[in-house]
């Protein structure tokens, strides 16, 4: 392999590592629902370690609700897929439902467009996947 090809491969590797979250990173997702007619938000946070041991905490301003569970690699892949799908949709103008997530160095914030069925559906799938752990 000549020098030029090596340089190109090196940069491709670097850029793919930056854009795609690696499987062995901690990750964190936070989302908030704006409460109507109230002033304030209900905030839920998911924190997962490299071993995919996770904690989900919901705070509506009263007692906090918590769930501890382990994610499978497949579930993590599905979460990543839904987040990247969500990111492709145009963002909403009001902050009825907002998410932010951090995988490694990559930080993303997204406001769901509540007027559009597709992003609402994607976000609902994601939230169902996470909040099902409150039921267990």
């Amino acid at each position, binding site marked *: 392999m000549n020098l030029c090809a090596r340089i190109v491969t090196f940069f491709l590797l670097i850029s793919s590592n930056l854009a795609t979250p690696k499987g062995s990173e901690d990750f964190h997702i936070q989302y908030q*629902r*704006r*409460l*109507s*007619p*109230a*002033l*304030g*938000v*209900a905030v*839920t946070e998911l924190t997962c370690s490299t071993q995919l041991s996770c904690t989900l905490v*919901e705070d*509506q*301003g*009263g*007692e906090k*609700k918590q769930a501890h569970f382990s994610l499978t690699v497949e579930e993590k892949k599905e979460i990543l897929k839904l987040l990247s799908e969500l990111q492709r949709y145009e963002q909403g103008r*009001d*902050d*009825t*439902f907002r998410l932010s997530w951090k995988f490694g160095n990559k930080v993303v914030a997204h406001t*769901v467009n*509540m007027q559009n*069925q597709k992003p*609402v*559906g994607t*976000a*609902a799938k994601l*939230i*169902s996947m996470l*909040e*099902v752990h*409150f*039921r267990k």
Partner: protein
Amino acid sequence: MKIFLWPTSLFLFVCTICTALATPCPGPENSNQPTQCKSLRQYFCSPEEKRNVPAMTDVEYQTSLRKLRTPEFTARLQGHIQGAIQEERALTPAQKQSLSQKAKDTHLVFENEDAMELGLSENALLYIKSIRILTCGLEGNVTNAMALYVENRRIISVCPGLVRKIVSAQQTSEEMADSLTFVLGHETGHFLFKEHEALYENFKDCLLDNPTHEGLAKQSTMNIFKIIFGELRVGPHLNEIVADYWGNRAMAQMMKSNTRAETFRSNYSFICGIGNDDDGEHPGLDYRFDFLTRNDPGIAEALQCPMRPGCRL
């Protein structure tokens, strides 16, 4: 030295005059007034007011839901909202009729099955189900409600968390309608604003002119800037202010037949939320309670507090 002092003194003088002109004079608060008149926010949002949703068995919840789905519930609630519209002096008979019809054509969705009775498409039903997961949570325990349009229908989605918060097995359908009057009046108000924005031009102008709207601009420290940027502040809040206006008007109607202080307080406790700060769309709590709510003649009278001067339609 004097050369430098003069412009500084002049500047300070101008600033003082501007600030004095823009600062509202304190109202004549009478010390004999009931304690709630000092701060409605403190009266409604007492520290013991928790946002926790009380535990309720599935049977109790289903029993409560049955009471919410009765004609008595709808008639009682519509009575408060329709009464508020009919009493609005600034509206012409045609405008009253139009608003009244829109309020009547609003559907309450407490559970996904309520949406299924509306003759909506499969996609629309899926959309409502998804919206409810986002706003109510998968378990439905979030204390929330939302006004939305789906296939040209006006829908108010009410989360189970809100239902659980207000009901107990002993309450009648009418009492439950009274307990949800502010929330549902507020959400109906969103439709009455979005479909009739032109009706609120004078109301908006009044809000811009009224110095007590300073509660809308915590980020601005100098009153002179508050006036200059009034439009920027009132505009994004108008939807929520109008929704509160209708919520308060419906409450004043409700209080003609239900004078229970507990019902009254619990209606407003839902606004207390988590914080007091303006979130960009909802004004701060002091403004909402001590300006908007106190500005309603019916509520001020029921509370035995002097009505705050403010804006009417």
